[in-house]
Each structure stands twice: as structure tokens, then as C-alpha cells.
């Protein structure tokens, strides 16, 4: 029967597939182009003579003797200490994910099981908090943080990002917990468990798919953040994204822009791997709040 539903005229099919094809090109080509170009010299990546130089690498041949060069990567990672930013990002992102999930599972579970009116009010409040532009919150932190000497440290950025992402985490885990049947923990409590014991021994073992998906999104939010990390961290504690932004300020010297290009490719690689392994979870996460809602 589905075959009949999906039977289309050839013209319509051609149109739709053409559209999908254009979209695939638009979505993927910029990444491959930048990846390819990151192994060239600036004279090829931004070619004054002919853009096809970026493919063949004419200037790269002349300047370095090979068709590919790792100069951009060397400059970024070694000369400009991008490795330090990568380590900082690693510390911050993993802490944010762990803390967000711990607080979020507790809160999300409570919100999903309460059924009282105030739980709904809290969810609405979280929605309002979710809508606040991050920069408005950051402009509220700066002055007190300066006064109390909290500014610039990694733990400060971690707790701020946990808090900013908490509304989203709560909403998502709340909708996952709604899908776990109530009978499960209620029967445990009939058998004499306290609420926390029921959560600990019955819910935690079955909640992992939802937690993994929410964890992925907390990871993305922390990894992709520019506003908080750029304004609340000192130079020494800088993460990758603000570091890349700071490369751009110093692009006057020939070749420096290639540091930024190499750094951009390096920072995108983990995301690429992430989609490769977790595509299914990402898709289910995006639709968790929506399809059931």
C-alpha cells in the first residue's frame, strides 16, 4: 500500500531529487572545500589569480615544494598554542556534560513524575529562561565576578554554562522520563523502596538512552559556545572557539589566516566524528520534544 501512496509523477520526482541534490551540495561542500584548502598556502586558498589554484595548489608547489602543506596546522597547534585551548575545551566540556546531566536527571525526573500544577509553572519558567539571550545574562555576571575575583577561572565558566543549559536539559530529560512507565517506580515503592531508592535502582538502569541523547546536546551546547567562553575566561584559560576568533584579529601577517583555517578544521573534526557515531541519537533528540508534544 505504501508503494501507491509514494507513487509520484516522474516530473515531480525529478524536481524533488534535484532539490535534495542541491541541498546535499550546499550542506557538505563548504566543509570539504575548507578541509582541502587547509593544506594549502594562503596564496592558493585566497587566490588573486584564479580560484582553481586552490584545487591544484600552484603557489603551494612553489612555496613549499609539495602539493600539500601542514604549515597551517603547525602554526596553529604549536606556534600559537592551540593545543592549550583544546585541553581547556576538553576540561570545560566534559565537566559541563557530567554536571548538567546529574542535576538534569534529578530535576527532570521530579518534573515528569510530579503532575502538580507547580511543576508545570517550573517548566514554563524554564522555557522563559531558555529564551534569554546568553549575552544579556553574561552582562549581568561580569561586574559581580570582577568584584569577587571569580572572573577568568575555568570552574566559573563551567558552572555558568551548566546553569544556562539547565532549562534545555530539564525539558529534554523531562520528556524522556515521561516515556518511562510510571508503574515501574510505583511498584518499586509499593515493595517498600523510598522515592530515591526507586529512582536509584529502577529508573537509572533504564534511563540511559535518554541520558546519552541529552548528554550529546549538552556537549554540543558547551562545545559550540562562544558568548560565555569569550567573555568569562582569561587569556590563559581560553577555549578553542574564542581562540579562533582571536586568530582573526592578527591576520595582517601573510599566512596567519591559514592558522585560523587549520584551527577551524581541527575544531570541526570532533563534531564530524560525533555525527558519524551518534546520528540516530541526535535525530531522536531533536524530535523528542516535538513529535510527542
Amino acid at each position, binding site marked *: 500500500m505504501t508503494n501507491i501512496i509514494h507513487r509520484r509523477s516522474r516530473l515531480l520526482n525529478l524536481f524533488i531529487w534535484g532539490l535534495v541534490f542541491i541541498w546535499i551540495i550546499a550542506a557538505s561542500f*563548504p566543509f570539504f572545500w*575548507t578541509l582541502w584548502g587547509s593544506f594549502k598556502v594562503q596564496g592558493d586558498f585566497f*587566490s588573486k589569480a584564479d580560484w582553481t589554484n586552490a584545487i591544484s595548489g600552484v603557489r603551494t608547489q612553489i612555496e613549499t615544494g609539495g602539493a600539500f602543506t601542514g604549515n597551517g596546522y603547525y602554526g596553529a597547534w604549536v606556534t600559537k598554542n592551540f593545543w592549550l585551548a583544546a585541553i581547556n575545551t576538553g576540561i570545560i566540556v566534559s565537566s559541563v556534560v557530567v554536571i548538567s546531566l546529574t*542535576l538534569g536527571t534529578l530535576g527532570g525526573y521530579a518534573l515528569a513524575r510530579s503532575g502538580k500544577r507547580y511543576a508545570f509553572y517550573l517548566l514554563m519558567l524554564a522555557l522563559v529562561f531558555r529564551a534569554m539571550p546568553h549575552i544579556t545574562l553574561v*552582562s*549581568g555576571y561580569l561586574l559581580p565576578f570582577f568584584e569577587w575575583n571569580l572572573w577568568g577561572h575555568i570552574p566559573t565558566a563551567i558552572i555558568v554554562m551548566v546553569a544556562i543549559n*539547565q532549562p534545555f536539559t530539564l525539558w529534554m530529560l523531562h520528556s524522556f522520563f515521561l516515556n518511562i512507565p510510571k508503574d515501574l517506580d510505583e511498584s518499586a515503592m509499593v515493595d517498600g523502596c523510598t522515592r530515591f531508592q526507586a529512582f536509584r535502582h529502577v529508573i537509572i538502569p533504564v534511563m540511559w538512552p535518554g541520558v546519552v541523547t541529552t548528554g550529546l546536546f549538552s556537549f554540543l551546547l558547551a*562545545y559550540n559556545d562562544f558568548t560565555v567562553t569569550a567573555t568569562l575566561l582569561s587569556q590563559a584559560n581560553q577555549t578553542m572557539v574564542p581562540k579562533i576568533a582571536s586568530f582573526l584579529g592578527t591576520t595582517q601577517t601573510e599566512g596567519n589566516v591559514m592558522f585560523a583555517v587549520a584551527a577551524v578544521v581541527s575544531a570541526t573534526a570532533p*563534531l564530524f566524528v560525533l555525527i558519524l557515531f551518534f546520528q540516530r541519537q541526535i535525530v531522536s533528540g531533536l524530535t523528542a520534544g516535538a513529535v510527542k508534544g
Partner: protein
Amino acid sequence: MKNRNFFWFILPSLITMLLFIALPIVSVVVQSLHIEHEAVLNEVENCGPFGCKKELIINVEETKKLKLESPLGQFNGLKTYTNRNHLAFEEIQQSWSQSDSISGFISNTLNLPFYRALAFTLTYTFVVTPFVLFFGFLIALGVNSLPKTMKGPTIFVSLLPMIVTPLIGSLILFWMIDAQGIIGSILQRIFDDPNLSLKASPTLTWVMLMVYGIWHSSPFAFIVFYAGLQTVPSDTIEAAMIDGASRWERTKYVVLPHLMPLTIFILLIQLMDNFRVFEPIVGFSAQANATSLSWIIYNDISNNEDQFFGSAGATSVLTIIGVSILLIPVLIRTWREFNRKVV
């Protein structure tokens, strides 16, 4: 769940949200009512060969001391809100009485920093959001009709623009549309204009930023719509076919109504996210031609020498008011739905 249990479960989460979301909003309001101290000036008599002159010199020590004593600055009331950099009441009144045409008045108004940013933010929000919904839906329809083996890779590729760091995504596009980049130079060849630069003209900068926004957010709408299409009830479609409904009628009367709640969901998320547009402006270095509300707040606080907390606070409060206005319809809707469920 018992109230006491609920309280302990939600407490850690609630504390972080109150401390780092609710309090900063209060702090922003307080800041917006204050302004930086004026520098302490001392009168000094300078005597040279041509007589004595009185000069005002900034007393650095006293100024520093004043700043240490009350870092918030001095109370300024609502004056920050009405000054030239924010709502600019005086300038608007003046321009209203002086300019002879509406368009002159509008262009005067759009030269004021706050209104310039507001105009871009609103245009961005209300152009990008519908396009995202439209393209997302089209791509979802397309991918849905692909053979099974093609679906996975297509979804993989589609996720890239959405998942990439916004600043990095905008940089990647920015380098490509550079006059010496691939898209920039191809456009120059197509229009046969060697001086064509997407960065120089305000209109093209706006278009470029919005194209980036659509590129970045369409995958989100696509994925949600695609998941929605999987759950379209096939019985209803079959029934419609038996009743003689054409393909267009089936889409219009069965598929679209089924996807309506999803559309509202995407709309809500997109309005919230597009209103805070910020990173693309940094990535595209577009501040000369386009600024957003978030960007002017960032500009006030990012400078390490002079940070204008009062000014940033006032813009933040105005931004929060803007977000609230956008949210009200959605909140009312959710409220009604919840009450219906309870009763």
C-alpha cells in the same frame, strides 16, 4: 510525587538556575540604572614663560578610588535608557520635527545604534524563520521519497551545517565568499564586475547573514519534519485516496494538519534562537553594515579597558523585553493547552 521529595529532587537544578539566570537578570536591571563615575578633575595652574594657564587634569588616583568604593558607578535613573545609544527620545523627536518626509525620518532613526541593531535583529528573525520552515519541509519531503540506502548519508550530511559551531560555520562561509575565495570570485565572473564584494554593501551583507542563518537552521526543521512525516497515519491517507483526493489535496488536508504542532515547535525555537543572532556578525566581521542587539551588548562589555556596564545593562533589559513580547503568544497557548488537559 510528594511535595517534599519533589523539592529535594529539583533543588540543585533550581539553585543553579536562580543563581545564574534569575539573579543576573536582576543584576542587569540594577546595572542599567547606574552609570560609570565621571573622572575626578583637578584644577591645576600651569605657569610658563607666557603667563599662567588654568588646566583641568584627570586625577587618576581619586578616580580609581571612587571606582573601587562603588564599582557599580553612580545612580543614573532611566537616563541611560533615553540617551542617544538606546531609545534616543530626544534625537527621535528632533528628527521627527525636522525631517520633511517619512523616509527621511526612518533613515535618521536607523542611524541610531539601538534602532539599527533592532531593525537588523527583527529583519533577521522574521526572514530567516519562515525560510527555515519552508526549506526544512521541502527537504524533508525530498528525503522521505529517496530510496532507503540514500537516506542515512543524506541525513548525515544535512546535520553538518546545524551541528557545526556557529562562529566556525560563519567563518567557513565567510572565507568562501571573500573576493578571492571560490564563491566570491565565481560571482565576480558571473556578474562581470571585478570589484563586486559581498562585504562592502550593506544590503549584500544582510542577505549574506540571512543566507547563513537559513543554511545553519534548515537542518533542524528538516529533521523534525522528517520525523513527523514518518508518523503520518497511512490509514487516513488511504481513505483520502479512496475518496479521490489528489496528491495536493492529501498533502493539504492530511499531511499539513498532522505536522502543525511540529511547525509551532520549530517556530518557537527558531524565534528564540534567531532573535539572539550574534556569532555570524563576529564571524563575517559584518559590524560595519549589520549589528544585532546581542552584538551591541557584547561590544559594550568585551573591551577590556572600558566596559560600559550601564549601557550593556540597558540594552539587555530592552532585549529581554523584546524576547518576552515574542514569547507571550506561545506561553498563552501552552497555558491554555495545559489547563484543558487538567480539566
